[in-house]
């Protein structure tokens, strides 16, 4: 428990907080990666998910991609792209997008797919076009599942963004890897605690957002 006290002291020490290599800067980088990756994953996953869910075709793509994403070791993808494109930001971002997209895709797909058939038929009967059915009925009603897809993607990305520092990126992993190499347990623990806090806080934000959207869908 001694290490734990020292780690907490390290986190609390203002000397470690500011500057380009301080806790706040590294945490900012970590959040930036997460937001960037989720944004790219959303750009790829949401349109494809909606298309598959709306037209009820290509369900196999969702099943295969989520299955493959679970089996693919992210560390492997990260190091592979790292060796091919060199050290920098591309490898971690690309690897994280590969990791995050299937969750987002599955969330978008299942959200639209699970909308009650009678509701969709009713919308059609009222004379709504395909596009209106999608944008006014299926997308709003599918929002809670989309958000829970984004939530699980976010959780995976925050956790795995720690590995970005392994191939030359920034983020909270920057504290972790030198500490592992020098057996600096205090620093290892401090960095780990920071990542956990960030993960739990971001997850709580999504949980709150999910609740808000569910409430919004129900009351409208």
């Amino acid at each position, binding site marked *: 428990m001694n290490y734990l006290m020292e780690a907490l002291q390290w986190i609390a020490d203002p000397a470690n907080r500011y500057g380009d290599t301080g806790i706040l800067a590294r945490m900012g980088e970590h959040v930036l990666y997460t937001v960037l990756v989720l944004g790219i994953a959303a750009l790829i996953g949401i349109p494809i998910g909606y298309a598959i869910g709306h037209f009820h075709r290509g369900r196999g793509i969702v099943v295969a991609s989520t299955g493959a994403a679970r*089996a693919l070791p992210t560390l*492997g993808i990260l*190091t592979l792209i790292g060796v091919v494109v060199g050290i920098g930001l591309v490898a971690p971002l690309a690897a994280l997008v590969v990791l995050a997209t299937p969750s987002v895709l599955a969330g978008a797909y299942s959200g639209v797919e699970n909308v009650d058939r009678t509701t969709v038929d009713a919308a059609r009967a009222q004379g709504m076009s395909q596009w209106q059915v999608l944008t006014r009925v299926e997308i709003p009603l599918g929002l809670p599942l989309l958000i829970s897809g984004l939530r699980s993607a976010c959780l995976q990305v925050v956790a795995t963004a720690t*590995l970005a520092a392994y191939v030359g990126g920034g983020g909270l992993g920057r504290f972790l890897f030198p500490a592992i190499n020098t057996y600096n347990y205090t620093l290892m*623990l401090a960095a780990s605690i920071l990542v956990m806090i960030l993960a739990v806080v971001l997850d709580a934000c999504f949980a709150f957002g999910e609740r808000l959207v569910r409430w919004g869908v129900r009351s409208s």
Partner: protein
Amino acid sequence: MWRNPGELDYRKPAHAGERTLSHLVLSVPAIILSFVLALPIAVLANRLRRLRSFLIGAAGLIYAIPSLPMFIVLPLIVGTTIRDRLNVIIAMTLYGVALMVRSAADAFTAVDLSTKLAATATGYSPIHRFFAVDLPLAGPALLAGLRVVAVSTVSLVTVSALLGVPNLGMLFTDGIARGITAEILAGIVLTVTLALLIDGALVLAGRLLMRWERAA
């Protein structure tokens, strides 16, 4: 593959067979433990409504802990060293239980209530009913959950290679250290293959144990 005679330091690549075996030693116990531990927790969670939301929330919280920090923090709690295999097995079991409790709780909830009541009315004791009725009927959904646990465990174990625990992930760390693309690729292929093999074994076991599924 990449046989380095005389160099058996943990940082050096041993041949892939040895890494695969270490990988199995880390993942298989964790997969089995996750399943065995998750079942009673799921049953308990379904019995006590208030406990259910607490347990499932706690499971979600465990899943929010990134794996690399988990491997580092666990030794402090368990009292092992950082490079101990036990850490990895415990960490993977925790993640596995977190995933499995939710799907097992859902699986048991989905069992038709009238079937359960009928069994009780026929004179099944609670324990007998659990093993003879609830468990088999929840079987397919439990298997689906277990398959997710198995595949993600095999892939997540690779992260522990960063701390020097031998497994297939070492083909990545060694590959990037020496700039050998083929070694990393081989590591990915071997990890995915291992995950799919275990998944296939589970499907096969499910078919053998749940013969009624095919007849239906």
